[in-house]
């Protein structure tokens, strides 16, 4: 029974060894803001933070993150990046957006004034098929409003 700390709350979850963190977040804890688009680590939609570092929750086994500080989009709902994304129109269908914001929040936490190149480097693991990239770049560049 792994013990998880997610967005500041503690959970005991019933998960077999080999279960992914994304599965537990979405199916067991009902935290469906984390999206799964490829389920094999290629697209970044399922990004969450482990101790502030962005990771792919679809490839992360839930037993490996016991006792760590997990942050999902539900824990970042009041982050200024959320408003910045809406203001800049940095989302279309919105399916990849929670993962983009989780990645972006980790980026600006480590580097509050990223250059355009640093944004492109930091966000290159999050695919957006609608092509909101120019607006994502703008949202992150202007995240403090």
């Amino acid at each position, binding site marked *: 029974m792994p013990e998880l700390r997610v967005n500041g709350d503690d959970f005991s979850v019933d998960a077999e060894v080999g279960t992914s963190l994304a599965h537990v977040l979405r199916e067991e804890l009902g935290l469906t803001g984390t*999206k799964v688009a490829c389920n*094999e680590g*290629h697209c970044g939609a399922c990004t969450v933070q482990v101790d502030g570092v962005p990771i792919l929750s679809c490839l992360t086994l839930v037993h490996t993150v016991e006792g760590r500080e997990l942050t999902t989009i*539900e824990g970042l709902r009041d982050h200024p990046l959320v408003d910045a994304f809406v203001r800049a129109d940095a989302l*279309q269908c919105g399916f990849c957006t*929670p993962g983009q914001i989780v990645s972006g929040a980790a980026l600006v936490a480590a580097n509050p004034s990223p250059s355009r190149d640093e944004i492109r480097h930091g966000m290159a693991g999050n*695919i957006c*098929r609608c092509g909101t*990239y120019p607006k994502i*770049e703008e949202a992150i560049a202007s995240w403090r409003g």
Partner: protein
Amino acid sequence: MARLIRTEKEVEGRYTEQWIVVEEDTLDQWPAGPLEEVGRPAARIDGLQRARGEATYTTDVQLPGMLHAAIFRSPHAHARVTRIDLERAREAPGVRGVVGPLNEEIGYPGQAVAAVAAESLAQARAAIELIDVEWDVLEPLLDPDEAVRRGELVGHRTEERGDVERGFAEADVVVEGVYRTQTVLHNSMETHQAVCEWEARDRLTVYISTQYIWGVRSDLAEHYGLPPDQVRVVCRFMGGGFGSKNGPGDYTIVAADLARETGRPVKCALTRRDENLDAGNRNATVQRLKVGARSDGTLTALEGEFVNATGWDGWLSSTGGPLEMLYACENMRLVERGARLNTAPMKAFRAPGFVEGTFGLECVMDELAARLDLDPLELRRRNHSDSDATDGRPFSSKNLLECYRRAEPHWARGDEVRARSRGPWRHGVGLASQIWYGGGGPPSYAWVRVGSDGRAVVITAMQDIGTGTATAMAQIAAEELTIPVDRVDVSLGDSARGPYASVSAGSSTVPSMGPAVRAAAADAARQILEIAAQRFEVEERLLSLHKARVVSADGGSWPLEQVTGLLESGQILGKGSRGPNPAGMRVLTFGVQVAEVAVDVETGEVRVDRIAAIHDVGRVINPLGASSQVEGGIIQGLGHTLSEERLLDPRSGAVLTQTLDSYRMPTIADIPEIVTELIDVPDAHLTNLGSKGLGEPPIIPTSAAIANAIRDATGADVRSLPISREEMLRALREARERAPERVGAPAA
């Protein structure tokens, strides 16, 4: 008055004749330019929900007792199922239902064969491994030209005007070329999926990621022999479609069959790999083109023979459309053939046919310009078509010459761009024009409900597939009711909660739904004025709405809530419908894009630095959302041009690119500077709005603009997509043989 008309209806360039009941548009168009709400940048009304992860997509639907389905797919491209044993799967842990065989003749790899529903997805996936099939494996047909030779056709279209032979005889210059485009995959971030639930065995509720709630409803009603009102289709949020989600698909039938068999709700979701096997594609094409022109650039003949690698099924999109429609040329002949192959069926993909056909046509036009030593922009101006090239009909509006004029400053950067060339990196500019449909049409309906608090709700069972149409509808209703957009909600995405709405395909949602929403808001406004006239004893003709107040021409003024507040829990309900398209006119969209590229002539690497996009789609409702549509189209076009390709094993037909690391879509690191300019002049003949659609136009000219910029940079004629390093180096080799001084020496 309701009027019954027999009219031509167009979606994605496919025309059908049908009976439609329309109400005449009685509203004059608003003046051009930004108004109070319409024409001003608006953040998405549902942006926070999506950004905060609160929006519920089909993938997030969890119903009590819901089972999960997995589909067993054919490993063979062409085979017959001679025996199938589902018993071991049926006995597997957690399995509650099995269906199959779904198809006995298999026409492409990944085609559905059988499916199971189990308590968990893991159990369902484990169970399909236990399905035993004996196959009669057949030789796959994979070569489109061979399919044409054998007469294996999905469709066949020929068009001809004038005298093409005479046209070529009159030409001073004839340019010919074979252009090829690849198969590309939609790869919506949310895979195709549905959750189905039956009530009392004759009422079906379907949650589905779809572009067409009403199409899914009618297809399922027909499939199950139900009255359509007993099928409810819900799609509140969906994670992208790009043309691939216009119908229910096998997965929905699987979910509904298994739900009926088990008496439980069933979710059936494609995996990413399934998505790359069986969710549709933009078909590959082979285009044999020939153009003739006089030395001044006037076209004398256009000829095109197109083979579309349509796959096992699907439809013949109009790859010849741009050749037929873009330029004034009296003599034109085209033949299109859809090759029936043992590959997955095509589905509409963002301007199907025209993306591919524009690549060929606009590349051969540029080769013609080079041969005649004419400026490519000037060549296009000289062949501008003032009326519809196919039948002479007038355009409802056309501002392509204005697009060309607005392209001039971007085009004029050419000298500066070329001067950046250093070492192996050669820089250049290129352009391409765009023509497409996008006028929308009836039927489409909306209601606008105004409550006693003076807030409004737009109610219509349309879907917002991510294009921001819900926001555009809120802006339109707000404008008509003279209230701020934050006082308008939009209720959409449920066939049980609103009237029929348009498919979100063919760039049609705004031009189809927008006029209906405006008409509904105007109907509500009229009722508000009628009530105010009685309450305040003023002649109704003196009253109008202005800035959320009822204003009388004789000086009185009352807040809207003072009128609607009389209703308490009652409401005002306005209804509106989309009027007809202008009779005898052709409604089309136009544009031009200018690309700046850099090519490393030693390695074949191509980098796109900048794209300026100028499009004419009539009135723009939301300039912010519109710029996002343009950027999104160009970025998909960039992937189509440079990196994306579905690869097949040439012998077995197996799909080699099923994952998102092997199928290479653009990332944020690949994006050039994109400059968007919209002409924003209302189409005076089209509806009460004058707006056309913008979803598709921006993807259309991108690949040709890039290829033409490559020609400008290097002298090389790229004729095949994607422009891989291999294709780039091939084109450079060919150009060096022709003119060694122009291209420069290859690396040692």
